[in-house]
Each structure stands twice: as C-alpha cells, then as structure tokens.
C-alpha cells in the first residue's frame, strides 16, 4: 500500500507498481518510425558512395576533379567533371544575382515598411511562388524567357544558361525573402527604438541596425538558396541543355550536374557499367557540395536564434 510506505518514512513511490509492456511496445514502435529517417540517410550515403568508390577505382579522382572534358560515352572516354560543375556554378551565379538583391529588398519592405496586415497577405502570397513545381518554371524558362531575351536583342541559343538562371532566380527569391524576413522580425524592437531616439531615419534604421543585426539569418537564407540552386534539376534539364562544355558565356547551352544525372538515369543504363557509375560519382559530388552548405546554414540559423530568443 502506498499509504504505509509514507508512514514508514520512505519516499512516496511515483513509479508504476508493475511494468506496463504495452507502453514499452508503443515507445519502441515510435522509435522505429524515427529510425526510418536515419535509415534514409544511411541509405543515401551507401547508395551514393559505394558505386562512386567503384567508379574511382576505374577513373582517377584527380582526373575527375581537374579534367575539363566530360564525354563518358566517347572513345576514348573523358571523365573530367569541371564542365558540369562549371555549368552548375554559372547558372547558380546568375540565379543568385537575381534572387539575393530582390529577396533582401522584399524582406526589408515586408519587415520594416509593410503594415502587419499587409505583411499577413503579402508574405503567404509570395510564398505561393515558391510552391510552384519546378517543371513549371522550366517550361516558363524555355518558352517565355528565351523568347523575351531574343525580343530585347540578346542572342541566346534555344537552350541557354541565362534563361534558366534568371527563372531560377525568380524561384529562389521568395525563399530568401521569407527566411530573411523571419530573421529581421527576430531583431528586438528596442534596437530600432534606440536608433530612432538618436535621430536616425527609417533608411538608416533598416540598413545600419536591422540588416546588420539579422545578418547571420540573411546569410543563412542566401546559403540555403544557393544550395537549392545547385540541387535544382528540372529548370536546368528543360531550359539549359545537355551539352557539357566549359563555357562562361550564359547565352550558350551547357549542362549542370543535376541535368546530367537526370538525363543519364532516365535511360536504360546497364547496372554496373561505367556509365551507370557516373550517375553516382556526380551524385556524390552534388551531395557533398549541398551538405556542406546546408550544415553551414543550419548552424548560422541556430546561432542567431540563440542571440535573440
């Protein structure tokens, strides 16, 4: 009896008298659910790196990372990944030049100028832009943006990096705007009020107080956007082309890493062939690139959260 325990001067017992196995089973089942996501990570690492390792036994990793010709189907085959990385970097650079200033500008407007009511409507409306499937943006780049560029006198190929990059910038802009606005919203009001009390204008408060105070969150949004650009497939597959060449001319067609993976994986490549393994070698490169950026961004986000919450 519990009462006799207390009169005996012992601590009252808060534990169940007997173990409830049903409760343990439930906890175990829920833990198994949680393990699925760990299994996914392990699966991704195994799926990418074992075939990639086999690939690098046939092709030297130095040649892979420094070669300037990507021609896995030619005789003799060349496996220099630089043209693919170059294509990805060029399209990412164009997208960043569009998305970063526009996204940051929109974020400052939403955070510092828009009324709470306007922000409540504008921010979700902008986020619908981020919810449009990427294949739709690919269609838009191929049919609309390329024609528009030609109309204004820029001689672009049918498939070109410029259209893909510009449209990708439009796609990424709401992501930057939304995440940066979150960071600016976390800046305490006292900081703004202090600056106003010293006679600052609204411009000065926005550019010298709010943006610097939210800078880690803003950088995190930039890094996440770059990571999305590097991993984005459909826009580059549809609009940028499938010609791996090391070019810095955005008016020409090129090929991004993701587009190569998708184009090669779509065909019936025999399992175990060197061509099949290239999917994983390029995929592993892509995974490492984006993982480094994501870890960096998640750290930054956590850091600014600790400062202001």
């Amino acid at each position, binding site marked *: 009896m519990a009462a006799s325990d207390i009169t005996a001067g012992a601590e009252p017992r808060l534990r169940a008298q007997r173990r409830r196995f049903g409760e343990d089973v439930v906890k175990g089942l829920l833990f198994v*659910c949680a393990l699925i996501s760990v299994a996914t990570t392990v699966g991704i690492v195994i799926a990418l790196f074992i075939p990639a390792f086999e690939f690098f036994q046939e092709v030297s990793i130095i040649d892979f990372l420094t070669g300037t010709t990507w021609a896995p189907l030619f005789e003799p085959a060349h496996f220099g990944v630089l043209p693919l990385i170059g294509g990805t970097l060029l399209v990412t650079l164009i997208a960043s030049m569009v998305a970063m200033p526009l996204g940051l500008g929109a974020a400052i407007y939403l955070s510092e100028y828009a009324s709470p009511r306007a922000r409540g409507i504008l921010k979700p409306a902008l986020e619908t832009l981020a919810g449009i499937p990427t294949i*739709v943006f690919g269609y838009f780049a191929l049919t609309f943006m390329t024609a528009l560029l030609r109309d204004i006198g820029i001689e672009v190929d049918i498939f070109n990096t410029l259209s893909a990059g510009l449209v990708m910038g439009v796609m990424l802009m709401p992501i930057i705007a939304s995440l940066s606005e979150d960071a600016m919203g976390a800046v305490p009001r006292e900081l703004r009020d202090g600056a106003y009390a010293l006679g600052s204008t609204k411009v000065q408060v926005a550019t010298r107080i709010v943006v610097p105070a939210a800078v880690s969150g803003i950088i995190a949004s930039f890094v996440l956007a770059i990571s999305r650009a590097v991993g984005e497939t459909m826009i580059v597959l549809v609009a940028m082309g499938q010609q791996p060449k090391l070019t810095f001319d955005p008016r020409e067609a090129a090929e991004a890493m993701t587009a190569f993976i998708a184009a090669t994986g779509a065909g019936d490549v025999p399992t175990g062939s060197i061509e099949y393994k290239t999917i994983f070698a390029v995929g592993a490169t892509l995974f490492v690139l*984006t993982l480094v950026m994501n870890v960096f961004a998640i750290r930054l986000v956590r850091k600014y959260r600790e400062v202001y919450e």
Partner: protein
Amino acid sequence: MSRRLKGVLFRGLLLFSLLVGFSMLIVLLVDVFRDGLPYLDMALLTNPPSSDPEIAGARPAILATLYMGILLLIFVVPLGVGTALYLEEYADKTRWYNRLLEINIQNLAAVPSIVYGILGLAFLVRGLGLGRVLLAGAMILTLLVLPTVIIAAREAIRSVPDSIRQGAYALGATQWQVVSRQVLPAAIPGIATGSILALARAIGETAPLILIGAVTYISFDPTILGPFTALPIQIYSFLRLPQEEFKLLAAASIIVLLVILLTLNAFAIYIRNKYRRTW
C-alpha cells in the same frame, strides 16, 4: 541628397523588389493559361498520350499521380506522426542519439530531390529488384517529404499546452493514454495541414521520378506494381517533343497540375483556419 528624398527612393527600390516577384508570378500564370487553355479539354483528361497532339491526353499520368498521392499519404502520415510523437513526447533530449535524430532530419530536409531519385534507383529499382513501378515512386516521394511532415507534426504537438497532459496524468492516465487521447486529437488540425502541404509538394516533384524511370510512353491505366508516368513527368515528356503543339499540350497539363495543387493548398488553409485553437 536630402534625407527625405533618400527615404522615398529607398522605399521605391524595396517595393520594386517585391513587385518583380509578384509580376513574375502573374506573367507566368498568364503565359501558361494563354498557351494551355485552348488545349484544356476532356480529351486531355480522358485520352492516353498519342503521337497526334489533337487527340493526345494525359489520363494515365493523372491517374498515376492520384494513386501515388493516396499511397504517399498512407505511408507518410503514420511515419511522420510516429517520429514526431517520439521526438516530442518520449525522447530524452539529453541523449546523443536523440540529438542526432534531430540534426539528421534537418539535414534530410535540405538534400536535393534528385539525390532521393538516386537512392530509389540504387535500392528500390535495382537493389530490391522492384523495377520501375509506381510503388517505388510513391516510396521515394514518401522519404522525400517525410522531414516536412515530421517538422509540421512536431510543431502541432508542441503547441498542445502541458496543462492538458498534466490534467490527464492527474486522473491516472498512462503516457500512451495521454498521448493518444489528449495530445494527438488536439494536434490533428496542424498535422493535417502539414500533411496536405507535403502532399502538394510531392505531387509537383519531377526529378526523383525521372530516375525511378517514369519517363516512358504509357498508354494504359497504371497499376501499383506496374510501369507508370506521373503528371509532372508527362509535362516533361510533352516538352521534349519537337512539335510546337505538344508545348501547348504541356501548358494545358500544367494548368491541370496547378489546379490540383491550388485545391490542396486551399484545403490546407481551410483546415488551419477552421480548427485553429488558441489555448
């Protein structure tokens, strides 16, 4: 330059950034609707693809997207809610493996979707020998949006106040009774909203399904264990054909896809507003 003028210019520049975003959204929609509306008819919904753009449709793709959506919900909701319940209600946050779980889920949410396609190709299609089937596509989309569902479900569970849990414990409920009869019912609106939004994201995904092998000419209705193509893939297939008419057919298919996504999103917002509770 006067401070006043500077202020006006700065504000104009910011407003311009915002307007570029919105005008692109409008231009995109106008472009798609202008191209696609003439081809948006019953034939698109009821006919299989064909080499003749006049009679070609997207029926197998639309059906496959529907089946995959249903399978996805069956898979992802229990897994996502289970993980969220474990992390919020059971996990001891000081243990290293529970912290690892959290970091792992955050990182998974940012892995490019095509990498999930590689996972599916290596393990499901080739490794398990499942082949290029609809079930493999649904499973890969499940893994892809699982982190989104987990994060949404955790937020919903976290917003249930502790006083409700303590009240139930005080009445002698066991932990699972508290979780299943108090916490979970209170969190259902948030979980439903998050799951529908995840479904919308999965339905629009193209890249992982390309690697699963959905880019094929399918003229018959799909089955769960048979070859398939999905609506976004069908759009991609139309876009790759040389004739201009197929581009317009792609635009019409995009309208169908956008209408499905818009309906899902509106439904999610409706649930969120209708069942919103303030504690």
